[in-house]
């Protein structure tokens, strides 16, 4: 049970900054993440990753090295423990070491950044991840992405025409399906999806970030990352995955314009697919339904109501309560899954 749980108080209850950072760094292949704090912080996250990855049929948990801050370090300082942990991480011969600070490291005043700046045979990146001292889960994602951008040289001469995907929600149950939908829409324009920054990406590919001409952000909350990409590397940005039916068409138009491709044939194809979808669910027309708006994401509500209008469903109280997805449905395929879930809910009512 959470107190003061509302959308206006996200920073208080949205989750730990450290977890946000790890949701990025743990998806860098051949990198090791060092967490500077008590083992409890590392355990909490190792356990979360173990559970989340198992849901996606991935049974190897990423390598997390804890500096194991205990009472002794709390009193006398933990920089020595951090150096030891970094040495331990080096012994795995990674391409990159990400060092994440925690609330405790910040509170006892350890200079984590200075320890990371020391010269070593492997690049070491410091990422602020100090729980409530540094914001929340989404701040952690941004901190990680922003820190990793620094590994890319600004003067890349090798421009890539594919679309880089930025900031996928790696702990999301449908992460791969959402990516597949974006890739499907891009394929209608004969555009390849390129670097996935960061999802199961080799650490060395961080150097390729600056060569991407175009990038698609997972959602608009990553706009600061988009701005950094634009200002540093001149990358053109689409500021979110396609959401819902209209959003998918808009996405095609935007991607086409950006890449200098006539998007009209692709849009026609997609409209045809959407018409078929609406026809498939025509049995839902006229059904009285209700939506619990109290905790719903505004983006989800908007898509849900648009789809209800398309299908001539009637929103009234009392009506059959409709299950809503946690995140806005991505693309036409996401809407189909939402409709399937509605149909199941209605049939059980």
């Amino acid at each position, binding site marked *: *049970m*959470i*107190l*003061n749980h509302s959308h206006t108080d996200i*920073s*208080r*209850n*949205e*989750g*730990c*900054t*450290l*977890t946000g950072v790890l949701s990025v760094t743990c998806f860098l292949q051949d990198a090791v993440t060092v967490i500077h704090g*008590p*083992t*409890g*912080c*590392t*355990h*909490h996250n*190792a*356990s*979360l990753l*173990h*559970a989340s990855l*198992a849901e996606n049929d991935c*049974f*190897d*948990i990423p*390598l*997390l*090295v*804890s*500096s*194991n*801050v*205990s*009472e*002794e370090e*709390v009193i006398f300082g933990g920089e*020595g*423990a951090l150096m*030891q*942990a970094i040495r*331990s991480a080096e012994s795995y011969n990674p391409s990159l070491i990400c060092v994440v600070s925690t*609330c*405790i490291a910040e*509170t*006892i005043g350890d200079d984590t950044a200075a320890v990371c700046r020391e010269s070593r045979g492997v690049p070491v990146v410091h990422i602020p991840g100090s*729980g*409530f*001292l*540094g914001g*929340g889960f989404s701040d952690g994602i941004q901190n990680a992405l922003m820190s990793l951008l620094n590994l890319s040289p600004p003067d890349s001469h090798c421009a890539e025409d594919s679309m880089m995907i930025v900031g996928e929600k790696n702990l999301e149950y449908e992460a791969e399906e959402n990516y597949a939908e974006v890739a499907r829409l891009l394929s209608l324009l004969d555009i390849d999806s390129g670097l996935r920054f960061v999802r199961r990406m080799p650490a060395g590919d961080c150097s390729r970030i600056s060569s991407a001409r175009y990038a698609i952000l997972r959602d608009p909350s990553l706009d600061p990352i988009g701005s950094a990409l634009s200002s540093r590397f001149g990358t053109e940005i689409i500021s979110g995955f396609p959401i819902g039916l209209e959003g998918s068409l808009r996405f095609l138009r935007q991607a086409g314009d950006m890449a200098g491709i006539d998007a009209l044939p692709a849009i026609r194809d997609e409209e045809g697919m959407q018409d078929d979808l609406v026809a498939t669910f025509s049995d839902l027309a006229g059904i009285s339904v209700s939506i619990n708006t109290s905790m719903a994401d505004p983006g989800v509500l908007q898509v849900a109501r648009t789809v209800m209008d398309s299908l001539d469903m009637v929103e009234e109280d009392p009506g059959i309560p409709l299950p809503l997805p946690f995140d806005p449905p991505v693309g036409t395929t996401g809407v189909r899954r939402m409709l399937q879930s509605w149909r199941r809910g209605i049939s059980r009512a």
Partner: protein
Amino acid sequence: MSGGCSRAGGGVFHVPECINPIWPCALTGAVAFLAGYTGISVVIHGSSGCYYYPKSLIRTPLFGSFILHDEVVFGTGERLRSVVADVSKRGGRVAVVNSCVPALMGEDLAPYLDGYSALFVDAPGFLGGVETGYRIAGETLMKEAAITGDGVNIGGVCLLDPFWRGNLHEARRMLARAGIPVGTVVAADHIEAVSHASPLTVMVNPDYPAIIGEDSGSLLGISSCMDTIMRVVERVPGADSSLFLDECRLAEERSIAACEKYLRRHDPPVAAIAAQAGYASFFGEILTTYLGADSPLILPRNDSSGVAVTDYATIADALSSDEYTLILGSSYEHQMRPDAAFVGITPPQRGRVILGSPPLAGSEGMLNGVEMILNACMDRKKKG
């Protein structure tokens, strides 16, 4: 075996860094202890990160103060008071469990709890593992306890233990069968029951300390179960162990018969156990006594009988030998050795549905333990 995340007292054994630690912190243990009681609401005083993890493991209502940067700079007391005021409206008492950062700040939080029936438990995660936090919370609560009842208390119940409900049911059943009244259950009772505790305590999981009453032994394993009940019967007027002892003998006979039948067609398993020390010893005894197996490799999660091994990499290394045909542990160990027979006895048990209440304590616990091992070994054989 010389690895792990544990640090023994006095700095004798020191492992600075740790790879993927897989045992929760003291805060989680303290919260698990207090959340076992009704009539008291538990508030975690810390960040949202320190709230969500215990909440994901302990399926009871928990509250959080969700402190932020400003409160760390200017003091967390007012925020805590406001949360305690809200929670108090639900009725009953409030327990506040302090996490790492507020503990480090050294703030005197007592004045902010004035006027509320609040219990303050200082159990920051950096003090140690689950068992440490459980003990700290228990010692804090038991300052209010009074021994006024007859019979025995049931100790060693912890909401993090996958067998806690089964153990509790089985302990109550066994004690009732011997005519022994139950005082209080540590830690799964109404909060007021601590003021009607009994002078003796029997344990269902010896890794969680008794805290109140004279430790009168464990109900884990048939022989220790029989010894414990006979010891208690001598001190409780009107109690009679005869029915219970008959049941234990019968359970042992059934276990031996089932194991002997298995061994007519199979070799004894070669086992490794990753669990709290008490459960590891319980299963180790089943394997050596009834299945004629060699002593299993034991990787204890806690340091009650040596050095805890809670480092994923160390455990994976220890289990890498393909000689092990049976693994008892958590879903971590299961994923390390998917080819071996597996018995889930240690949290977490991800990817499995656990709804019922099987015990490990008592005669039924013994039967359940043998059953789990034999079924796992036979399933592995069937898979080839």
